[in-house]
């Protein structure tokens, strides 16, 4: 390998990329456990299909749009790397192979649209969703990743490299981006039948906990891996991730105990995710005590924020707005207060003598990504709804989307299952005639 290469850093980034990959299945379980049993599979497969679609697009043109040489003004990459041409075995990004960097960043591009799916649980056509994912990463995620993550000595993305918005691991590009898109889609698709009336409780909290456990685990790759090297900055990001998450879980649990009288499992899981979201942009610029503060604030604030949807009447089903949008904003803005200037980045926040400068930059990043993502997602969702239709029919929604869209049921636990099935099903090799049926 060429000079400047580090096997240690490379090993680290490879494994971090694998960890971030695991977050998408983790998210699938987190979301899948939270829906009612009749839409479990749809929820799972909305995340898994993002793995499939985005990976292929990334190789075809996504990497080039996000990390190709800047096409002008820091807005988007050019087409130099179409089909990954010119990326050879020995090419480096910093101290690691380009392939390692490309793999790591790909996993971010995959999970971001998957996050959106939680806002439209139980009611989106699978084909429409797949189309949305393909278009959304193309016109929203790839450009925004360029703005935030592409560094080229001041000639890179306009938010991060040119304007000094600090986003260590994706508070804006990933979480605000997905959260704003989730809000847009929740508005476009409308409320579920029974919203506000039916509690629609999680069908499997152990599945939710599995999801949150895998997310937490994978998030070390997400945050510490964003140092792109196994060094002290990564170490600080690692510890900050752990303690902010811990603090946020405590914050959420305390909030709900006081407000509703119980410490819930779902609260523990949601609090942890809220903490992970909030520390994402900040983990490379705050101290561990700062991380605890950010965590507690995010945990309690997101716990409060999830009731907004009842107040304003939008059905953000699994709280993508309450957790990712709100958590992402909190984390991004708090950098303006808590950045020490001594961790990974040199800018200082208000509490460390840096004045309001960094806070202003952070606000810029937040507003730009929020507005861009919301507007384009709304337009895209509306276009799909008006053409091929985005929402399933009322009958399908009542009977359950798993059956209608995927011809499957999540579970068959019946002790007599096999016998019942044997007795009462008839194998057919051609699609069954579409006669009047009772579902």
């Amino acid at each position, binding site marked *: 390998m060429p000079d400047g290469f580090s096997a240690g850093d490379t090993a680290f980034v490879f494994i971090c990329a694998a960890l971030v990959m695991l977050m998408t299945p983790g998210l699938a379980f987190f979301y899948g456990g939270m829906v009612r049993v009749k839409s479990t599979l749809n929820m799972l497969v909305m995340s898994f299909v993002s793995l499939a679609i985005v990976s292929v697009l990334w190789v075809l043109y996504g990497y080039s749009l996000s990390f190709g040489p800047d096409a002008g003004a820091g807005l988007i990459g050019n087409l130099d790397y179409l089909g990954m041409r010119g990326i050879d075995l020995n090419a480096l990004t910093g101290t690691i192979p380009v392939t390692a960097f490309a793999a790591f960043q790909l996993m971010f591009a995959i999970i971001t649209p998957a996050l959106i799916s939680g806002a439209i649980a139980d009611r989106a056509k699978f084909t429409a969703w797949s189309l949305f994912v393909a278009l959304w990463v193309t016109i929203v995620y790839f450009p925004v990743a360029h703005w935030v993550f592409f560094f080229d000595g001041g000639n890179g993305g306009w938010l991060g490299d040119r304007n000094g918005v600090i986003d260590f691991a994706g508070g804006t590009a990933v979480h605000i981006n997905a959260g704003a898109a989730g809000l847009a889609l929740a508005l476009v698709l409308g409320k579920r039948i029974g919203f506000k009336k039916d509690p629609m409780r999680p069908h499997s909290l152990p599945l939710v906990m599995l999801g949150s456990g895998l997310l937490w685990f994978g998030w070390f790759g997400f945050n510490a891996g964003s140092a792109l090297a196994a060094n002290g900055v990564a170490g600080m990001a690692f510890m900050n991730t752990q303690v902010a998450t811990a603090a946020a879980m405590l914050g959420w649990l305390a909030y709900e105990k006081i407000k509703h009288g119980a410490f819930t499992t779902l609260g523990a899981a949601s609090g942890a995710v809220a903490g992970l979201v909030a520390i994402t942009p900040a983990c490379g610029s705050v101290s561990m005590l700062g991380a605890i503060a950010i965590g507690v604030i995010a945990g309690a604030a997101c716990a409060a924020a999830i009731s907004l949807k009842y107040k304003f009447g939008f059905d953000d089903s699994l709280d993508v707005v309450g957790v990712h949008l709100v958590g992402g904003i909190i984390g991004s803005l708090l950098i303006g207060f808590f950045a020490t200037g001594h961790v990974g980045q040199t800018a200082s926040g208000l509490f460390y003598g840096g004045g309001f400068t960094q806070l202003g930059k952070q606000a810029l990043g937040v507003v730009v990504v929020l507005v861009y993502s919301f507007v384009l997602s709304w337009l895209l969702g509306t276009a799909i709804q008006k053409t091929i239709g985005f929402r399933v029919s009322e009958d399908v929604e*009542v009977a359950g989307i798993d*059956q209608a869209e995927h*011809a499957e049921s999540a579970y068959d636990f019946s002790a007599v299952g096999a016998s019942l099935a044997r007795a*009462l099903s008839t*194998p*057919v090799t051609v699609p*069954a005639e579409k006669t009047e049926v*009772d579902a």
Partner: protein
Amino acid sequence: MKLITAVIKPHRLDEVKEALQAFGVHGLTVTEASGYGRQRGHTEVYRGAEYTVDLVPKVRIEILVDDDDAEQLIDVVVKAARTGKIGDGKVWSVPVDTAVRVRTGERGPDAL
């Protein structure tokens, strides 16, 4: 006394319960069931083969009532459960000899 049993579409339970409440009946016992009738089930694909599953989820409700209320109650349930589509289910009534409230030992109508 009578025991009214209703096998209905799960998502009509809502309406049935409200109708019963309005009628003045406050207790019922529910079991999950599956039904097979002239309605058809759904199609599932598994490993390159398609299957028609004819068994369809139903809710089975039992309500103990006074003899006098029985006929009317049946009508109430039937009306509330109806969607007009195939598979709406059945309601039937059988005579009851005795009914007891476990907590108090009260018998007959008082037990309800």
